[in-house]
């Protein structure tokens, strides 16, 4: 029984990081229609920046959220403003835009990854953050994972409030539902799409900060997070923050169960789950 609870708890702890990984991509694909294959590279950059700030300047990783987030937001803003916006203007149809923007994101992936290798090298780096356990009854939590999960859920909750309670959030949701009608109501669609992409990069930055507290980093780690984000999106439905949260936790528990049975097959199980989902219900479990 205890081992079952441990598996469940571990899954929940993983789920937080999976959710925040997915929220960003969900914004970028759900609203701006860019399947940003380089999303994981943004996370990687966030993680390496945190590692640098922590090891060379001694800044607390949690405080890095406030430093790394804006940097990634700016990066996302520039990428969308100079690359994807131009592409959208030059591409005749929305379907062609989706395909071309994915190919362009591949180019972006190569560029970010090779620049990261220039700057940070190919070696595996990391630091330890709260390397002890806390006990709740008989259940053991790794302290850093607990902090990560709480931070991830809090960020997702704040982001959800931003989308539902502010005027800008309302404009974003309008743009995602029907961009033509929203434009007629006076929403500046282009600005909203850029904002969405930048917010997605911001979320990737936050995810990177949190990831760096738990795992070792290397410049080629991005792809794994991109894939996890895509799986969670397919699980939870596009563009929905609660969906991403639920999807993240579901995938976390699923992964934790699989690695309890056969650790070597965890990633393979993720891919299998993903492919089955794509075939059976591509709009996601909670999709519209």
């Amino acid at each position: 029984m205890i081992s079952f609870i441990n598996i469940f708890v571990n899954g929940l702890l993983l789920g937080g990081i999976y959710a925040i990984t997915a929220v960003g991509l969900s914004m970028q694909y759900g609203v701006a229609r860019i399947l940003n294959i380089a999303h994981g590279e943004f996370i990687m950059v966030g993680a390496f920046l945190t590692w640098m700030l922590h090891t060379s300047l001694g800044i607390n990783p949690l405080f890095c959220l406030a430093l790394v987030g804006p940097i990634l937001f700016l990066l996302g803003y520039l990428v969308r403003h100079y690359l994807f916006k131009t592409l959208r203007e030059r591409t005749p149809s929305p379907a062609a835009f989706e395909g071309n923007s994915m190919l362009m994101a591949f180019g972006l992936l190569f560029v970010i990854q090779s620049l990261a290798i220039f700057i940070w090298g190919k070696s595996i780096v990391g630091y330890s953050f709260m390397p002890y356990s806390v006990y709740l009854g008989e259940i053991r939590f790794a302290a850093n994972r607990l902090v990560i999960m709480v931070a991830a859920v809090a960020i997702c909750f704040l982001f959800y409030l931003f989308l539902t309670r502010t005027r800008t959030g309302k404009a974003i949701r309008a743009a995602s539902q029907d961009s033509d009608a929203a434009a007629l109501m006076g929403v500046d669609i282009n600005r909203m799409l850029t904002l969405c992409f930048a917010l997605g990069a911001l979320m990737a930055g936050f995810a990177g900060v949190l990831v760096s507290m738990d795992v070792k980093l290397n410049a080629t780690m991005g792809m794994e997070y991109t894939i996890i984000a895509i799986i969670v999106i397919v699980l939870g439905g596009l563009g929905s923050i609660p969906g991403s949260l639920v999807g993240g936790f579901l995938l976390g528990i699923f992964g934790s169960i699989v690695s309890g049975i056969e650790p070597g097959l965890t990633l393979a199980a993720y891919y299998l789950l993903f492919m089955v989902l794509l075939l059976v219900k591509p709009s996601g479990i909670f999709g519209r």
Partner: protein
Amino acid sequence: MKLKTDAKNVSYLVIIILILAFLVAVPFISKPYTVILLKNILMFVALTLSWALFSGPTGYISLATAAFYGAGIYTAAYLGDVLPLPVMVLCGGVASFLLALIIGAITLRLRGIYFAIFTLSSVELIKHVLHWIEITVLGKRGRPVVKVSDSTVFYVILIIVVLLLVTTYFLKRSRYGMAMSSIGSCEEAAAHIGVNVVRVKVFTFALSSFFIGLTGAIMATGLIYIDSQIAFDLNYSFFPTLMATFGGLGNIFGPVIGAVLFSYLREILITKFPYVYMLIFGLVMILTILYLPNGIIGLAQTIKVKFLGGKDATATGRKVN
């Protein structure tokens, strides 16, 4: 008018034959390094042409190239020391063909971007499952591959490239080729006018994978040792896609030009500055998609129309010829 096109075709044919004759002579007249260089370039030409064979006209972006390439490599690793070389290479092609039939049959319902990410994850799924089987069931990781001389590999790849050129040329002019481009333009309409969409898609997908498998099987003989990480390297999915896009999918020369330029650049940069290569590759990719949506071939045609004038139907659309 007809005479003019005939003359043009004949001159193309003469150029191609001259290039091929030169390539056939290369192992006799040049240094061993040149053979290795040309072998690697021809490998990318073969992968890119195979990729373009299916994805060009249909518009489906397949990222499963690495899966079929890896299937060829593993076939060579298991059958290389039992079967004679030509049979082994053929087996690699057949293995990929069968794998593509399976993947093709289950991805029929997927369109656009979903097809791309499904094929991408199929590579990773196969890689991880194979890795797990090797570690836990077989108890050892990877396998050695029988070594074959570079000039033999070179000739086999040259034959594969020639077969691909001929297949692409005739497929485009056949009922299947017409059916494929009608799927690329509008799949519903294609189904409506009586194209068996399922059969055309799955068959051409498998045909293109057959050539990728052949290439993988023969290239494996130069690797000495392989494991799942080496065989199912996602770069083999990305490179052909990007090379073909860079060259342009308008006609048969686009993918060839893209592959030759980029694989030559790769050969001179990869040993000393591998990350410079990746950086250049990524930047050129972004610029190509932004400013040259029809690739080098599209650019050449635009320039031709602009300077020589004349009504060229190629100036407007993505699909040319």
